[in-house]
């Protein structure tokens, strides 16, 4: 599903080059549940942005479902993001002037879903992330954890094949976090490929495979059972 070869992503900051990702090779198959861990600034979000077709590598290749992403046009990438990828951003990226349900509807608008159907679907997903009764609140009327769940609901709106979640439980207490993990496992059983970035080792352990990143390199890449030891 995902094949990354010799991938680098550099940022040029004046005279210095920041190597956010430095020669990463990674393959992830359909239906996997991968946890990415690593210290702050190690390049996790940068990698997620590339996998999510938002950013492009400085060098190396990334192919998604057999397609070289470098060869795809801006609009085709937009369509891939819309139809196949759900992205939970580290900082949520909700539209501040739109209510929870409208935020969840956004990707459905661009998928061309008629408004009634859209609304119904969005309400259903909000229920699934336990946000009943908060549907018509604006993001600034919601708690951090509630916002995070709106972001998760939005990523799930178009039934993505791949769910990319950058710190999806960062703002949640253990109990709600566990509920989200429950949801993720359900999704995995439905065949969704899950890639999750987290600091929390317990949360990371919910994944089936652990990739540890440091300074833009992959340090370890092992099944969860092996990692636990």
């Amino acid at each position: 599903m995902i094949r990354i070869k010799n991938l680098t992503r550099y940022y040029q900051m004046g005279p210095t080059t920041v190597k956010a990702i430095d020669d990463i090779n990674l393959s992830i198959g359909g239906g996997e549940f991968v946890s990415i861990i690593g210290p702050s600034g190690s390049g996790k979000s940068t990698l997620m942005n590339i996998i999510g077709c938002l950013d492009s590598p400085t060098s190396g290749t990334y192919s998604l479902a057999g397609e070289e992403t470098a060869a795809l046009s801006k609009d085709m990438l937009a369509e891939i993001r819309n139809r196949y990828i759900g992205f939970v951003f580290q900082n949520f990226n909700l539209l501040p002037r739109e209510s929870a349900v409208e935020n969840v509807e956004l990707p459905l608008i661009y998928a061309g879903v008629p408004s009634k159907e859209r609304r119904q679907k969005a309400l259903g997903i909000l229920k699934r992330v336990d946000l009943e009764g908060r549907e018509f609140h604006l993001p600034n009327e919601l708690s951090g954890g509630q916002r995070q769940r709106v972001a998760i609901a939005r990523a799930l709106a178009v039934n993505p094949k791949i769910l990319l979640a950058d710190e999806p439980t960062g703002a949640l207490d253990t109990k709600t976090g566990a509920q989200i993990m429950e949801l993720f496992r359900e999704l995995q059983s439905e065949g969704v490929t899950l890639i999750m970035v987290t600091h929390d080792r317990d949360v990371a352990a919910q994944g089936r495979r652990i990739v540890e990143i440091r300074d833009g390199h992959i340090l370890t890449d092992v099944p969860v059972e092996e990692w636990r030891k």
Partner: protein
Amino acid sequence: MKTFKFTESLKMSLRSITSNKIRSFLTALGVMIGVAAVITLVALGNGSQKAVESSLQSLGSNLLIVYSGQPKGPSLVRRNTTNIAPALSEDDLEFINSLPESMVLHAAPESSASGQVKYGNANTGATVVGTDTGYTAIRNYYPIYGSFFAQSDINARKPVAVIGAQVYKDLFDDGFDPIGQKIRINGIGFKVVGIMEEKGSSTTDTQIFIPISTFQKYISGSSKYALINIQAANLDSMRELQKFLEDELLHMHRLPSMDAADFYIANQLDLLSTMEGVTGTFTLLLASIAAISLIVGGIGIMNIMLVAVTERTREIGIRMALGAKSKDILSQFLTEAIILSVGGGLIGILIGISAAYGASRFGGMASVISVQSILLAFGFAVITGLFFGGYPAYQASKLDPIEALRYE
């Protein structure tokens, strides 16, 4: 696959417009003023053109005027004749009157002076015009009450007067029958015999007509005329008639050429075309002022849309990250600009029509609202929205999603 629909753009735009009402209003205001200005100013320009045309037409038809003195350029309509030294003689008039009806229908001499008119305690200023009975037909200007003076009055040099509509209003109470009343013009007593119809022009309506012979005896003391009004037999031969009269009068005055002449002839055709030219330029000028204000309105839209795009960079990034394509973003911002300009345009049309109507109803200005100017202004507003809104919308659509997402 279903595509992003126009209705979605429309909803998003309306939302963003209503979420910042004052700003949206101010943005649309530029276009509103522009469109209203085009409609009002063109209406006033057209109105003044029509007014000038009809006042020229009301001078009479097929009119030639022989003036005393040197011509003062081609564009003068009707010189203030009260201070022309009269140079046209009875011989000149007789010669013109002797021409066959296939050339000249009527001719009437005219001399005028400004005068102070009194009736009881009321008094007013007026132009006292001495003329003969042919005047009414030539100028197509008749008494509405009583009658014009007769040939017998001229022969007997009678002190009788036909007063203009404004003179009547100034001197008499409304509804009072002035016929037979004695008024004093520069201290000389005249008997009122008629009231002229109202022409709506202050120059025309403040005149008092008296027999030319009486004028010569009591007012000018000269036997010459300031001018001679001539009604030509037909429009097509007016220029030939003018040339013929010039030649004959030069001969009679023993003068070598028109350069040395003590008279000149104005032709209604020339006046008409000159005035049309002048008012046409006037209308064009007003229209260009208005068009400039429309462009300024457009720049206002562009300015606000550029600000909006910058302000909403993050929103654009989020929308792109969730699958918005370039054309979706383009259509969202373009729709917003077009709603502002079209909305402003529609309100501007209402304002423009009301202002033009108000100017003629309450401001006494002639205005003729033209459908073309409405269509033109509105079309211009739409194009303004497309053009000036197009650039910011294009900028928005070309943003890089990840850069836009990082924008603070």
